[in-house]
């Protein structure tokens, strides 16, 4: 389930960065037009992927419930952490992006 949490976390981070305001705040530069769209796509894809993995690991019912739970936890951590430790969270998002799929692959 940890892999699901990590991938969902990365997904929310991407969706957040896909917003002009947050992109600029976090990376200190203006986003290119394609970049926002890319981030938005990636964000949704990552969320969908994490949901799929959750359902695969735990069945559709438990999987859905647990996916919602870890997603809420992850995005809350992101939003409340961002004003205080933006770089740490960005780093965590990147690590999640790598570690999440890795753990999922190992769990199969």
């Amino acid at each position: 389930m940890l892999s699901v949490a990590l991938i969902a976390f990365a997904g929310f981070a991407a969706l957040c960065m896909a917003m002009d305001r947050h992109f600029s705040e976090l990376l200190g530069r203006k986003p290119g037009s394609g970049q926002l769209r890319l981030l938005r796509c990636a964000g949704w894809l990552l969320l969908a992927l994490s949901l799929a993995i959750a359902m695969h690991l735990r069945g559709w019912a438990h999987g859905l419930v647990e996916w919602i739970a870890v997603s809420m936890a992850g995005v809350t951590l992101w939003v409340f952490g961002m004003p205080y430790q933006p770089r740490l969270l960005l780093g965590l998002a990147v690590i999640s992006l790598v570690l999440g799929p890795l753990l999922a692959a190992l769990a199969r």
Partner: protein
Amino acid sequence: MKEGFRQAMAWLHTWTGLIFGWLLFAIFLTGTLSYFKDEISHWTQPEVRRHALDPVASLGLAQRYLEANAGHAERWMIRLPNAREAALEVSWREPGSGRRGGVSKPLDAHTGQPVEVRDSRGGEFFYRFHFQLQMPHPWGRWLATFCAFIMLLGLVTGIITHKKIFKEFFTFRPGKGQRSWLDGHNAIGVLVLPFHLMISYSSLVIFMYMVMPASIMASYGGSTEGYFNDLFGREEVPKVANAAAPLVPLASLYAQVQQQVPGAAMGYVQVYNPGDRNARVSFTQSVAESIAYQRSATWMFDGATGQLLTQGAPESATMMTAFSVVGLHMGNFAGPWLRWLYFVFGIAGTAVIGTGLVMWLGKRQLKHAKRERLPGELRLVEVLNIAGMSGLLLAVAGFFWANRLLPMAWPGRADWEVNSFFLVWLVALVHAVLRPGRKAWGEQLALGALAFALLPLLNGLTTGQGLNHSLVAGDWAMAGFDLTALGTGLFLAWAAGKMLRAPKSVAKRAPRAPRATVDSTEVSGC
């Protein structure tokens, strides 16, 4: 109400939020604690020792005890120990004693002997309070369920009112006074919205048979009996035959159940007419095994011959839906990490309400900042905010202090623990009336910080099962409670510092989750 839909909904959100906010805060806080009610009970009754689970052995011990001590009773109930409840609990009804004749004894799961345990409601107090509000039946349930409806209304009107719900989805700006409070309120509301909606709606479903009985009246001719028979199935139990026949070993019946559902944990066993030819034994699967209650996971045996008679009828899809909704609320299926998330989200819901109450007053206080005194109605809100939030936290701490300080043999000590809860709450109310607002907050939060932070020490001194012992012994429930109490104390100390230090209300406050974290306990990590 003539100003437009959104404004009307904002008005509705604000006023229903205020009127029911204090009750909802109490319901959410005690409900959140209830997710760890077994662990809280473990802390409040430390005399019950935990052992490795062995259902077969436990059944044998329970049967032996009941045959020796309750052979005359018409009905026995055995609650098997599980990962979160250490005791093997047996109960029966003394014949001819009416409604109050129930006897319940916790047995040590290893020895089968009754445990000398201090009388305490433990976690069950908070659990029952959150849906009965210490009011006589059925008024408490009605009020609590109506509050749940108002919570749902608050969520929906909040969503309608929050114009920038998508734009500000990831927005939280601390250090900006009222703006930060609003950001925080919105963020904890929106980010955890699935949980809040689930909790509120499911509360309605739990008591829907009581608060919305029209369908039952219309379909079942005004009687709920037919409805409940259709829903749960009636356990047909024959009358006692007055012909003695020894009860088969319950362990043998357990083995038969395990053949049907290998590996499934059983919740409780009921024995009807023990020692009689018409004895019946029913096994009910543990609620932890699935999200929804499963009436099909019950088995009825002939107690004299050991033959499997019936299994509960399969549930329809509609039943599964309804029971799943209820099951999601209860969270009985949740393992350790998910249970902690339930707790955290419960705190989040409590914080949504708390921040709302603080903001309601804060916004209006600004208008009267130049005056010396707040106008009467605002002062009332201020007092209720303080008593309802920090006062409630003090009351919770008071319950646990009473649990450790009241002597074991004190008559009615369980009731006195509850009385302590309400007495402390009352004193907090009086204090809030007598002291100026900010000072009252600061003093109560500071006292709360001490009360919670010192709980582990109090525990260690009075029971010898403090952190130095529980951490080493791997008693995670006990250690988790103490550690959470400590954490709560630290949080309250930080909050108290904020209130006692800064002079004016435009102080920098980063409202992560203002004043709702409370102590609880960690589940045994296995």
